[in-house]
């Protein structure tokens, strides 16, 4: 993490994107040639742009004054909480599969709220119940959607 400061992030992103696009470019050659035409052209473009991005990153590393504001957003201290949020959401998705929609949601909503620092039991309960009732009434009763 510490050395990252010196090399512009675009170098890493560029290399990653080049690798991904080359992989899919090889995959395309296995498809029926007529169906592969468009993907081939676009993935070819993708490879060129990704390489270009890497080179730009190198250039920005050498000349830091060219760095854009948008290049500096990615810091571990910043993205830590969002990643935890993502893990919680992913966990919710798993619960959904195992426990069914309403049970999973009843657990997820207060848990997520507590993570966000809401302590009032009343708020927790009301939000949880109201949301579940709302989804039940609108989706299950009215729109007749069979939730998992």
């Amino acid at each position: 993490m510490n050395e990252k400061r010196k090399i512009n992030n675009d170098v890493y992103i560029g290399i990653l994107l080049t690798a991904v696009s080359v992989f899919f470019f090889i995959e395309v050659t296995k498809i029926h040639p007529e169906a592969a035409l468009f993907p081939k052209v676009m993935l070819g473009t993708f490879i060129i742009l990704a390489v270009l991005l890497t080179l730009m990153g190198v250039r920005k590393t050498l000349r830091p004054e060219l760095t854009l504001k948008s290049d500096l957003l990615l810091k571990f201290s910043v993205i830590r909480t969002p990643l935890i949020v993502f893990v919680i959401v992913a966990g919710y998705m798993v619960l959904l599969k195992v426990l069914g929609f309403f049970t999973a949601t009843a657990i997820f909503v207060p848990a997520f709220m507590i993570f966000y620092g809401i302590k009032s039991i009343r708020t927790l309960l009301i939000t949880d119940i109201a949301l579940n009732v709302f989804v039940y009434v609108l989706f299950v009763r009215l729109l007749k959607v069979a939730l998992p």
Partner: protein
Amino acid sequence: MIISELIANLVNIETFIGILVGVVGGMVIGALPGLGATMGIALLIPITFGMHPTAALIMLSSLYTAAIYGGSITAILIHTPGTPASAATAMDGYALTKQGKGLEAIGISTFASMTGGTLSAVALFFIAPPLARISLMFNAPEYFLIAIFGLTIIGTLAGDNMLKGLIAGVAGLCISFVGFDITVGVPRFTYKIAELESGIQLVPALIGLFSLSQVMIQAESIEAIRRGGKADIPKQLQGRVLPPFQEIVREIPNLLRSSVIGIIVGILPGAGGDIGGWLGYNEAKRWSKNRQEFGKGSREAVYASEAANNAVTGGSIIPLITLGIPGSSAAAVLLGGLMIQGLTPGHTMFTEKAGITYAIILGFLFANILMGLLGFLVAKRVAKVANVPTGILAPVIVVLSVVGAYAINLSYFDACVMVVFGLAGYFMRKTGFATAPIVLAIILGSMAEQGYKRAILMAKDMNIYAYYFSRPICVVLILLIILSLFAPLGLKALEKKMHKTHSQANKDSDD
């Protein structure tokens, strides 16, 4: 004779209830992520079974326009486009909310939606048959070019890094290739996963890229959230709901232009509300004096995209009624509703069944006006959503996003797609990639590819370039594409020159 029949069809309690249910239901369904006009109409069709044809179709078409409007409410307040048609609105609408002007943005969107919808109803009333004939002049080669034209918008969406904007666009195009190829019928990039055979669905990808990634962005300010506050939105709501009169007068050209764009896009069977919103946005930016404001909370942008996407609704009903060719996917479901009612589209709709047809069109017109009035009425209450502490709002958004992504096709897989795109969208936004080009490219990718391939088959043994240049509309579109590609370069060079003399920063000189 016809007029008395028309009035009898229109002025009755069943029609009135139909409009009300359509408008209120449409606003709710539209505002929720995932549930859009298409699904709303499909779900209401069984209820229309026992209704009078006029009331039934007025209800369905009211729901259509109100759902497109409803989508903008959540797009503006919580950066969660309720329908893909409001994706363009989300950028500037949410930027306005962040400035504390959420209420004004809702007012703008309400006024613009009402105007766009009403103008499209007027077009439907007066010039439906000739307009429908024009729509027939567009086919595969034209759709290919329209898609390419739409892709040039990426240039305006890219933010401060054009290269990354292009990469996002190309990535979106590649995502659109997943699924079955139409001309040969072989699977591509599906890896034997049955769900991937119909491709990556737009709506889950959109919800993930816009709303889940927004929840993650807000989580960065966890300390502020834990203190019970908002991540990035000021607490107080300023401003008034009704846009100021002078502003409306000033925006008349913008509103008209966007509505005409919307109507035309609506008429074309291959393009729907999602594309209409983007094109309206792009043209507004091209013609605007305050171009640099776009993307950062431009009021003009909200006027443009919302007028255009609601104008699509009336536009897409034009070829539906006159020829039986729906102008959008929501209109396709509407066609089902029409046929179940025993109404068969065609010129008889304007002769034998004129009493029913014109009653439906007038009902649709009233629905647009009612939608606007209702919107102004509830705007203040609705806008309070932006004031709800993130700690409560975030879980609600997550749950509704998951349900919305799931409900379109009752597919758990789609919900997973939504979550994956959420993560991808977050990292893109953290590394300077705009997410809007991906959405645009997913919408336009298959349109471009299918149009291109069909055009080759349609050209028979003619040279494909000669075929394009033998079609007048194609020539016009090619000119438009060239113009939109090179005009900004010239303008940018000019701006840069002025910029350099004015300020010290040379940050824009990259790429």
